[in-house]
């Protein structure tokens, strides 16, 4: 397969921008749905309660209210949402019902749905629904909570290694509950055609095909009667798009009442209803030789998954279990991640799920060990980084659902050394732990791997049109990552035609036969490779068709730009083959592993605990750069999300299971003034061996090492206080408390006595 490489690798400006910059995008709430009713969901305000009764009669009497849907409408058969990933029989009891019937298990769980002539009128009627609840005891903490499943990642014999090691150190770590918080909240619009018995649902994202299958089954409809359509999507980050109660309730109501139904989530309910993330606490241990060679890593983690197992609730625990060792040579690993059920909003994937947490734990242990053993941070890592000739290198075995995966290829030293050079690591060592103009300075670095290109397959379909354009239909979903442009670049290079000739359609079940979607950093690898294959197939079809018209063999036809040229004959324009189309499926069962290193320079004000990130550098190898602009954008965006997770963001609950973040004034997202200096470089020294593009998934790498790097930089800055920043977020108050605790614990000089 020949790709011209004109556009691939370049800074191609995005096609999407032409409409998005003009405010001409069409997001789900922008969709006009004539004759529709508006749905608003009544949600539980109790963390755990038995529903005694629901009386909607007063609500139904309110102006404009047309119906109120409750569990009663489902006549005892309440569908439960299956797991899309890593389903396991032990998880079936924890599946979320599409609406609460006898019990509510978290604040925010859907109890009823009001349908009215406007969203405002529906909201007005909410407090007229009389719900009687009998409170039940609340499981507010993961510590002793019931277990859903436990994932174990093992390699070698960790306990024996710990028993024999020169140096063993343990510590506790905590990554707080976070939320992906895309700027667009969720929404859906459902239209039921009673005559054709067809359902069309707009507002799909991420995994439309899987959701179509789930919905069709729940509604007892053939898959061919259910269409899910993706419009413009305002961010996903692994959260938006998974099947949630409203994905059933809204279409169900459309069919039941024979009216189109539109639902737009508001931010207050998004904070309690959309999937949360992370919330992992662990005890971890490291065993080393005296020279810093790491022998073993062990961790026992609790993941607070909330009240139910949602479609991908297992992923972060599973990734934590399998990815703890990162890109390092660690012979013995024993990582156990136990998923516990509490009365909180269910959690699921959020960029780098489980890997962000794993890297935090591992890199912190590395710096703790390095300090104890008298080694500098850089030497400790180079002593343990896998060398190129050691790859492929298998990740630890996973149980109870095995998944064999190996680090494919790469030179982790190349990105590491480049990262060190970019931040000026050697020159800046003079600043480590030093007090300068009232602030302590610290630097740290860390290495990471990003698992991407998740299989099993992806579809693409290319269609020639009479106007000379080529439509590219792909099963991958767009969530803002520039999918249209990247797919168009790949197709354009496959045909050696200008990008303007291509129109990309994505993410809807009407686009291809068996799409999968965008998650696990797979769209470029899987969707892009499917486009490459479909392009080849289409070229073959064009040659065959041209040959039959010209009376020669297909191999005699030469394709030049948009013409098929027979030997000695008149060139035939592609436009003359209008409606010719080719579909292809790219199969892949091997993850790709992009990799790299990040480093940070921070300054800590010991009197307020405020940490300023003076410089943040990332170097990553992604195998093959398709669009240099969008790749850079993914890295910067991911890093800033990671920094938000380290310093600002937290979903907190009180002991009664009440959610304490009710607005964006409570859940603090990074803003333009918080992290002004972020620099990133991408390399493509080691193309992926498993796909025709040589690309490796690269949307999540940016976030994965951030917590480890920053907490180590803070520890380095405050080395004279011997603080261990092992609990996130590192809010100013937490950093200040670490210093106070250290002062009270030992004879540490107060900063006033330390002059520069």
């Amino acid at each position, binding site marked *: 397969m020949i790709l011209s490489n004109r556009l691939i690798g370049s800074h191609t400006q995005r096609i999407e921008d032409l409409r998005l910059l003009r405010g001409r995008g069409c997001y789900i709430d922008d969709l006009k749905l004539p004759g529709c009713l508006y749905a608003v969901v009544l949600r539980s305000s109790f963390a755990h309660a038995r529903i005694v009764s629901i009386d909607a009669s007063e609500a139904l009497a309110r102006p404009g209210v047309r119906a109120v849907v409750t569990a009663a409408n489902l006549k005892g058969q309440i569908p439960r949402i299956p797991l899309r990933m890593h389903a396991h029989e032990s998880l079936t009891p924890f599946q979320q019902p599409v609406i609460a019937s006898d019990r509510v298990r978290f604040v925010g769980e859907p109890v009823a749905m009001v349908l009215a002539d406007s969203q405002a009128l529906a909201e007005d009627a909410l407090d007229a629904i009389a719900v009687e609840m009998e409170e039940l005891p609340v499981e507010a903490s993961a510590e002793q909570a019931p277990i859903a499943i436990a994932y174990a990642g093992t390699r070698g014999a960790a306990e024996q290694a710990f028993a024999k090691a020169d140096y063993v150190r343990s510590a506790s770590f905590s990554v707080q509950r976070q939320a992906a918080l895309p700027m667009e909240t969720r929404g859906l619009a459902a239209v039921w055609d009673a005559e054709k018995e067809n359902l069309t649902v707009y507002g799909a994202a991420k995994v439309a095909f899987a959701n179509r299958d789930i919905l069709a089954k729940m509604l007892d409809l053939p898959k061919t009667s259910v269409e899910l359509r993706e419009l413009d999507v305002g961010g996903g980050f692994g959260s938006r798009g998974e099947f949630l109660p409203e994905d059933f309730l809204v279409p169900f109501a459309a069919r039941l009442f024979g009216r189109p139904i539109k639902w737009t989530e508001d931010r207050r309910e998004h904070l309690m209803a959309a999937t949360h993330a992370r919330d992992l606490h662990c005890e971890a241990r490291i065993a080393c030789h005296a020279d810093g060679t790491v022998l073993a890593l062990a961790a026992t983690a609790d993941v607070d998954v909330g009240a139910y197992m949602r479609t991908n609730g297992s992923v972060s625990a599973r990734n934590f279990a399998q990815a703890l060792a990162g890109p390092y040579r660690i012979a013995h690993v024993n990582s156990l991640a136990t998923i516990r059920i509490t009365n909180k909003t269910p959690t699921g994937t959020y960029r780098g799920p489980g890997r962000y947490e794993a890297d935090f734990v591992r890199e912190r242990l590395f710096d703790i060990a390095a300090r104890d053993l008298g080694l500098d941070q850089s030497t400790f890592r180079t002593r343990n980084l896998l060398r190129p000739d050691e790859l492929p290198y298998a990740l630890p075995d996973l149980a109870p659902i095995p998944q064999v995966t190996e680090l494919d290829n790469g030179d982790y030293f190349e990105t590491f050394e480049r990262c060190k050079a970019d931040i000026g690591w050697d020159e800046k060592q003079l600043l480590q732990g030093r007090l300068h103009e009232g602030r302590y300075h610290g630097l740290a670095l860390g290495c990471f791997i990003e698992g991407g290109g998740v299989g099993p397959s992806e579809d693409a379909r290319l269609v020639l049109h009479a106007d000379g354009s080529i439509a590219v239909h792909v099963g991958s979903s767009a969530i803002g990552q520039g999918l249209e442009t990247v797919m168009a670049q790949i197709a354009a290079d496959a045909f050696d035609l200008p990008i303007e000739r291509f129109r990309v359609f994505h993410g809807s079940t009407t686009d291809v036969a068996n799409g999968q979607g965008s998650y696990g950093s797979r769209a470029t690898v899987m969707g892009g490779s499917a486009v490459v294959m479909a392009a080849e197939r289409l070229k073959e079809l064009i040659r065959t068709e041209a040959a039959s018209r010209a009376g020669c063999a297909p191999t005699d036809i030469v394709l030049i730009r948009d013409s098929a040229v027979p030997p000695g004959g008149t060139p035939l324009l592609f436009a003359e083959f209008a409606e010719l189309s080719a579909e292809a499926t790219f199969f892949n069962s091997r993850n790709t592993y992009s990799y790299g290193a990040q480093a940070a320079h921070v300054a800590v004000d010991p009197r*307020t605990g405020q940490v300023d990130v003076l410089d943040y550098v990332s170097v990553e190898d992604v195998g093959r750069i398709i669009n240099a602009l969008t790749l850079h954008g993914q890295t910067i965006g991911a890093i800033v999300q990671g920094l938000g997770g380290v310093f600002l963001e937290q979903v907190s609950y009180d002991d009664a299971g009440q959610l304490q973040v009710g607005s964006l*004034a409570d859940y603090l997202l990074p803003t333009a003034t918080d992290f002004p200096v972020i620099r990133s470089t991408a390399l493509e020294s080691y193309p992926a061996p498993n796909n025709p593009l040589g690309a490796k998934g690269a949307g999540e790498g940016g976030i994965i090492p951030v917590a480890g790097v920053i907490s180590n930089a803070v520890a380095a800055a405050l080395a004279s206080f011997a603080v261990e920043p092992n609990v996130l977020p590192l809010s100013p108050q937490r950093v200040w408390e670490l210093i106070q605790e250290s002062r009270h614990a030992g004879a540490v000089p107060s900063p006033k006595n330390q002059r520069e």
Partner: protein
Amino acid sequence: MKLPPFRYERPASLDEALSLLAGSAGDAKVIAGGQTLLPIMAFRLAAPSLLVDIGGIAELRGIRIMPDRLEIGATTRWCDILGDARLAAEHPLLQAGIGHVAHYQIRNRGTVGGSLAHADPAAEMPGIAAACDASIVIAGPDGKRTVPFDEFFLGALTTILSEQEIIAEIHLPRWTPQRRWAFLEFARRSGDFALAAVALHYLKDDSGRLADVHVGVMGVCDRPCRIDAAEAILNGNEPSAELVAAAAAAAAAAVDVDDDLHASQAYRKALIAVLVERAFEAAEARGG
């Protein structure tokens, strides 16, 4: 989060606004910038049946420099204060403090009166009012009355305003150019509510001793206030690191806000002490 239903009036005069309030049996709310009221209503924490929009009332606007005071109309917006070139000399502390209020877009709508009526103990305008001995002119059914700020602000989110009264203007004593001053705030992000803030100003006599010291704090008590104990330590003395540290400690001792979601009491005490010290450094650096 659609708003609950209400009637809306936009009176052209203060008298008309007052009679609308009087006639509504306590179920009306005044709206000016709406930057605080509308979010509250969007969360359905308040659902007044009538909104009286005072944004069009001419006599509530304007910044007037009088011989002995500044008069700021209640519907003066933050951008009006920041954009008024006279205030750089006439009240630099006010301008500096208002620069910390929220964000660019909020500053184009939010008003002085709105902030004072809402009475958030961490907000900048009430803090400046406390630190600068402001008076509030209140218009009600029986005419206007002027109240010292300390009597106006009763506690967190509580003022003496009745449901039938509207803030008409705020008075600040005239600034003197010899005053040294600083406004320092600590917030999680730019534009967030202060976890703690200090508005400081003072004079120095010919022998370099501090006089007429005003140490105003925000965010650390149930109301913004001057810390008498800190001022007592500073007044009449020459500044020194030890003196300022003692004043900072006095400010910390006055903190009485309980632990909350945003900060513990212990942390707020540490913050206010740092801010007092750093505010003093900044004020001294300003010279005079």
